[in-house]
């Protein structure tokens, strides 16, 4: 029966399926998935470089002493930076992650090569179209493109193409999950990394549907075919695209944390059901965070605002706190099982800090949680938001989540994905070991600079603050930190891109052997894997770190209520 043989051929174990066996992991790799992981990952890194160059120009403009760009080019480059970093780099790399997560861990082949080509083609053409229109000066509307600001129709058409292309890639992911299950490529629960990617894909569906709902009528308006959509409606639906696309990042980033902690130290989830429940909380509630952007909009009421940004949203915050505990707890248990049992934090000293994937993932957890998470929950509180809305505190928050969190985690993943998929060992391994630390230092400095300048009232998206004449030397000092942080982060980004591109061109080929090891802690003599699986005291160091995190959160949260009381005293 031809039909049966075709329909059951989606398992990599089936005879005749084009694949190879990875010399490092021993897992089967689908050739089709490998090809499109390469295309999407490399294209994503190119857009990361473009967005990074724009970031440097912006940081050197907000640093008032340098003030590099003219007003016209500042807003043009700000648009370019937002689109390339928050949309293009992230979406291309996430499609690469989805194709990996639905094939290799499930022992399955990609559902359709043609669908993957259609997805990549639409995304690529749309991305080039958007970037060209922006640099041609036809779309100085910033990433949000709030109506009644109007860009060239190709700007909206390009974004629609990117969104639909990504949706087609997400369809390919779900179809692969379906045929993998049907053909018995795997049994039981799917691996946690695939589960996290599934959660990210579901959030992506919601995100991209909002993108289509808002961009299609805006495109037809820009062509003169339909009346202007209501600006308040536009803001509501646009943030269903703009903020939710960053929740796709969060979900994919957490999946990458689990993957890297497993690959580098052998960590396993301490409780599969709890970790999966946390991903489900993301799927159900994290998208409501979009309402943060409308906290000072008059069109929606207080009940809608408070329900979406507080009560329901806190369930997603709970999910982040669960992951923020289970990832380091899994690492601690794995290290203690290897024999690193001294005291509360003896295992921390033995961690592979020179492994760039591990250091990138750990710094990503710390920056995302301690800076991005704490500021995010605080700024999302309706009352506190009134003293922070549209100030530099907001980009101070999301540079810690999206850049210090997601981008850094994706960079860490690349230190394993590139050797495994392109089959070349990394060049410049000494530089690679330094790169995550340099990038993390830069982005932390930038985020602090933005947050403190913003707390002094410096607005976001402003070319010049001196004309207002109301900001003292302290605000200028923090803007200087923004500039210095931007330079360091860009240096880290440039090293990453050069290492990746250099590896693709000059890296030593890996054929029928394992990739060069970045360094993993060895198990000490007399230890047994899995020996502490049911020992609740094996995570005591992580519990202390969690209490430290909660203390930091409490101090920051209540300090902001004090700041609100100072600005808006109740007598």
């Amino acid at each position: 029966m031809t039909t049966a043989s075709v329909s059951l051929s989606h398992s990599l174990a089936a005879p005749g399926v084009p694949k190879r066996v990875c010399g490092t992991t021993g897992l089967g790799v689908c050739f089709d998935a490998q090809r499109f992981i390469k295309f999407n990952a490399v294209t994503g890194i190119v857009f990361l470089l473009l967005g990074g160059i724009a970031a440097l120009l912006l940081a050197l403009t907000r640093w008032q002493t340098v003030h590099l760009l003219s007003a016209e080019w500042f807003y043009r480059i700000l648009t370019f930076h937002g689109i390339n970093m928050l949309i293009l780099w992230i979406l291309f790399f996430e499609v690469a992650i989805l194709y990996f997560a639905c094939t290799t861990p499930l022992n399955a082949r990609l559902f359709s090569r043609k669908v993957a080509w259609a997805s990549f083609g639409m995304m690529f053409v749309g991305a080039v179209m958007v970037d060209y229109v922006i640099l041609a000066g036809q779309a100085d509307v910033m990433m949000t493109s709030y109506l009644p600001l109007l860009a060239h129709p190709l700007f909206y058409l390009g974004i629609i193409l990117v969104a639909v292309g990504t949706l087609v890639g997400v369809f390919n992911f779900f179809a692969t999950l379906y045929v993998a299950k049907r053909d018995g490529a795997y049994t039981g629960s799917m691996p946690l990394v695939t589960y996290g990617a599934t959660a990210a894909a579901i959030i992506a569906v919601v995100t991209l549907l909002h993108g289509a709902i808002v961009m299609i009528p805006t495109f037809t308006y820009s062509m003169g075919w339909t009346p202007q959509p209501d600006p308040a409606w536009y803001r509501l639906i646009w943030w269903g695209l703009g903020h939710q696309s960053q929740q796709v990042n969060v979900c994919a980033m957490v999946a990458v944390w689990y993957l890297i902690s497993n690959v580098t130290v052998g960590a396993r989830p301490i409780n599969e059901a709890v970790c999966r429940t946390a991903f489900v909380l993301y799927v159900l509630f994290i998208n409501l965070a979009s309402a943060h952007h409308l906290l000072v909009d008059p069109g929606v009421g207080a009940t809608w605002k408070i329900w979406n940004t507080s009560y329901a949203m806190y369930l997603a915050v709970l999910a982040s706190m669960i992951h923020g505990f289970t990832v380091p707890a899994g690492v601690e248990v794995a290290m203690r099982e290897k024999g690193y049992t001294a005291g509360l934090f003896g295992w921390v000293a033995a961690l592979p800090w020179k492994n760039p994937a591990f250091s990138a993932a750990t710094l990503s957890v710390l920056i995302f949680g301690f800076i991005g998470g704490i500021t995010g929950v605080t700024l999302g509180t309706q009352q506190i938001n009134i003293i922070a809305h549209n100030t530099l505190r907001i980009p101070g928050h999301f540079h810690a989540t999206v850049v210090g969190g997601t981008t850094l985690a994706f960079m860490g993943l690349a230190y394993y994905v590139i050797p495994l998929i392109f089959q070349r060992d990394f060049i410049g391994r000494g530089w690679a070991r330094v790169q995550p630390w340099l990038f993390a230092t830069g982005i932390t400095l930038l985020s602090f600079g933005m947050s403190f300048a913003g707390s002094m009232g410096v607005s976001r998206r402003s070319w010049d603050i001196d004309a207002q004449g109301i900001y003292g030397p302290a605000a200028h000092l923090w803007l200087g930190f923004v500039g210095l942080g931007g330079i360091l982060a860009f240096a880290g980004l440039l090293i990453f891109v050069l290492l990746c591109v250099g590896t693709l061109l000059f890296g030593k080929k890996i054929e029928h052997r394992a990739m060069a090891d970045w360094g993993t802690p060895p198990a000490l003599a007399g230890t047994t894997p899995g020996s502490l699986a049911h020992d609740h005291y094996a995570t005591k160091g992580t519990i202390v770190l969690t209490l430290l995190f909660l203390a930091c959160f409490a101090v920051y949260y209540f300090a902001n209520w004090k700041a609100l009381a100072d600005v808006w005293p109740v007598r």
Partner: protein
Amino acid sequence: MNNEPKIHPWQKVLDNPWLLLVLGVLIPFLSYTVWGWIELALTKPALLP
């Protein structure tokens, strides 16, 4: 003797990606989009002084 690892019943519920897809689309659309859209639709235009 069955050597398969025991899977928690709750995890079996969570293992259904299609149920998650339906709930994951429905809840944010109802809570954020539809409710917000209704609020905007019911907002009366401001009167000029």
